[in-house]
């Protein structure tokens, strides 16, 4: 339904989009995530034919956005960021105006309005001037105008920005409701909304797609798994192997618990969690592709510790998002600008490779010193590489 292929957009020397490619299939609700300035709105504006791309192609419902903009616009319902509506018109007049512009017959419009009023919850404000409405209601009216012609595709750009939590929850509820029978591309930087409404997400950062897939896959692709372990800090039990051996073991201290857990293979990033109970609670990350729960359980039995909680979960979407988009706030588009020609690009890449090889040779002797200098940075880079295997850089071109 929506296909973007190597979309690029430059504003002077600034690259807003850098070869963005993705597809959204029929009936999918896809979250389009990214920090402010990552290129979400630019992508949506290209898809809705409001602006043109500097490079690449895009098709919506089989129509090319550059060659058939009218056909594309007929098939989409679009809600731009901060739905700007004609304030002097009443809600009914405005929706009627949009219906007229879309060539809807008056009878069809009235019939559609019944659904829209119900889905968007605007029945009580139909006769009111838009300028007198709250942000929440304006957003609903904006959603209503996007739905007025019953489009197969909806493109919603931050539909919940500026809304209070109750209004946000309602809009997300509407999106879920209408998403049952439509293709929806939902742009937001609110991850909870994506988790609530979208089975799949595309994450963009610095104008590039850095992750694309089902939410679980994105979380898993980040590699690390988070564990939470809580043990009683006052009591031990008799069955503990060490106690059976005769060693009199007092209740464990936090340090002992941490030392014991950190001795397990592949775990890292320990953090003690606050707890109301008389217990020690730790959070840490496990190695990718492993399950440390058996070892943790065995350890507690061995030590005679009462395990009050053991939880294993993929990293939250928020963690993944942070890892993938870290540094984006600087809007660093430090990449070389204006590479129009593929041949030029290939030559440039080759030149860069050569330079890298030379550099590597020069640095061979010093490698030891630099190893492990920045574990965390490497980890993030690794995370990015894993999760971002659909990014242009990660693609096998």
């Amino acid at each position, binding site marked *: 339904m929506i296909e973007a292929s190597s979309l690029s957009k430059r504003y002077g020397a600034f690259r807003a989009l850098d070869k963005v490619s993705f597809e959204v299939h029929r009936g999918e609700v896809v979250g389009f995530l990214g920090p402010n300035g990552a290129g979400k709105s630019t992508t949506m*504006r290209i898809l809705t034919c409001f602006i043109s791309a500097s490079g690449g192609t895009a098709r919506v419902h089989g129509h090319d956005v550059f060659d058939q903009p009218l056909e594309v616009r007929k098939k989409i319902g679009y809600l731009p960021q901060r739905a*700007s509506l004609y304030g002097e018109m009443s809600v009914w007049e405005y929706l009627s105006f949009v219906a007229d512009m879309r060539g809807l017959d008056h009878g069809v419009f009235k019939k559609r309005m019944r659904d829209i009023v119900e889905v968007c919850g605007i029945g009580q404000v139909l006769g009111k001037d838009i300028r007198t409405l709250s942000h929440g209601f304006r957003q609903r009216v904006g959603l209503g105008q996007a739905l007025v012609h019953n489009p197969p595709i909806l493109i919603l750009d931050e539909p919940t920005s500026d809304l209070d939590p109750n209004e946000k929850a309602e809009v997300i509820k509407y999106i879920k409701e209408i998403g049952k029978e439509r293709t929806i591309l939902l742009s937001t930087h609110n991850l909870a909304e994506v988790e609530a409404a979208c089975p799949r997400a595309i994450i963009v950062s610095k104008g590039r797609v850095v992750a694309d897939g089902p939410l679980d896959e994105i979380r898993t692709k980040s590699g690390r798994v988070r564990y939470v372990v809580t043990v009683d800090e006052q009591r031990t039990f008799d069955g503990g192997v060490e106690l059976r051996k005769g060693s009199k073991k007092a209740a464990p201290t936090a340090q002992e618990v941490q030392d014991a857990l950190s001795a397990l293979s592949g775990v890292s990033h320990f953090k003690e969690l606050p707890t109301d109970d008389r217990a020690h609670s730790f959070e840490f990350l496990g190695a990718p592709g492993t399950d440390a729960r058996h070892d943790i359980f065995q350890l507690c039995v061995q030590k005679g510790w009462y395990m009050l909680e053991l939880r294993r979960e993929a990293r939250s979407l928020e963690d993944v998002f942070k890892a993938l988009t870290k540094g984006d706030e600087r809007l660093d588009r430090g990449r070389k600008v204006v590479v129009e020609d593929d041949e030029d690009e290939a030559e440039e890449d080759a030149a860069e490779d050569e330079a890298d090889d030379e550099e590597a040779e020069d640095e061979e002797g010093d490698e030891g010193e630099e190893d492990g200098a920045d574990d965390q940075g490497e980890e993030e880079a690794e995370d990015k590489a894993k999760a971002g295997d659909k990014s242009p850089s990660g693609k096998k071109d």
Partner: protein
Amino acid sequence: MRIIWNIAKREFKANFNSPLAYVVICLSMVLLGIFFFTVWGGGFWQADRATLAQMFLWAPRGLAMVVVPVTTMRLLAEEKRSGTLEMLITLPVRDHEVILGKFLGAWALVLVLVASTALYPIMMFWKPWNLGALDTGPVFSGYLGIILFTGAAVAIGLLISALTESQVIAFFVTWVVLLALTFLGFGIDQVGNPMTRTVLSYVSFDARLAPFARGMINTRDIVFFVSVTFGCLMGSFWALERRKWA
């Protein structure tokens, strides 16, 4: 055509949803009355003839200095600033339909005001007062001149509104441009250099309108106003298209 009509209708009606249109129309009528009956160059009574030449002299000046800048300042500038343009353009519309719709909506409002000046000939030379036999030829040609002039002036205002996001800037730039074009012909006879005189009379709105007020319909004047209108509409279209490639 349906799209252009819808946009024009919305634009026209939007003016009457605020006091602005009412204030502008009332104020313009009052000012026109003052200038028509009293001020410089001798008012209607001093002319001692059944003529509306005075009205056709002052009406375009008032339209250029007040009505057109106020009417056109928000056409695209406000839409761009508030973001409603994005909403409008992502409907199935072509850019030229937006431009034409906006132009016709604003022009229609100005023409309503122009039409309201028809009260002068009707009331003064027909009912309730019959002040004399009015030569209707110059009246019709005068109105034709004003209609063509307002078309060109609105198109200029639309172009300027398409080039900025600020209503205030759009207002002042339109005001200055129309003021300059209108009064370029002021005292044109005193200009010594014939070349300069020719150029000034060619671009001056006042000079172009003078024959219409005298009952002369000159094809060159019609072509001039239509050309300015068409050129500015094309310019507005390009200014709107510019967003795609900015």
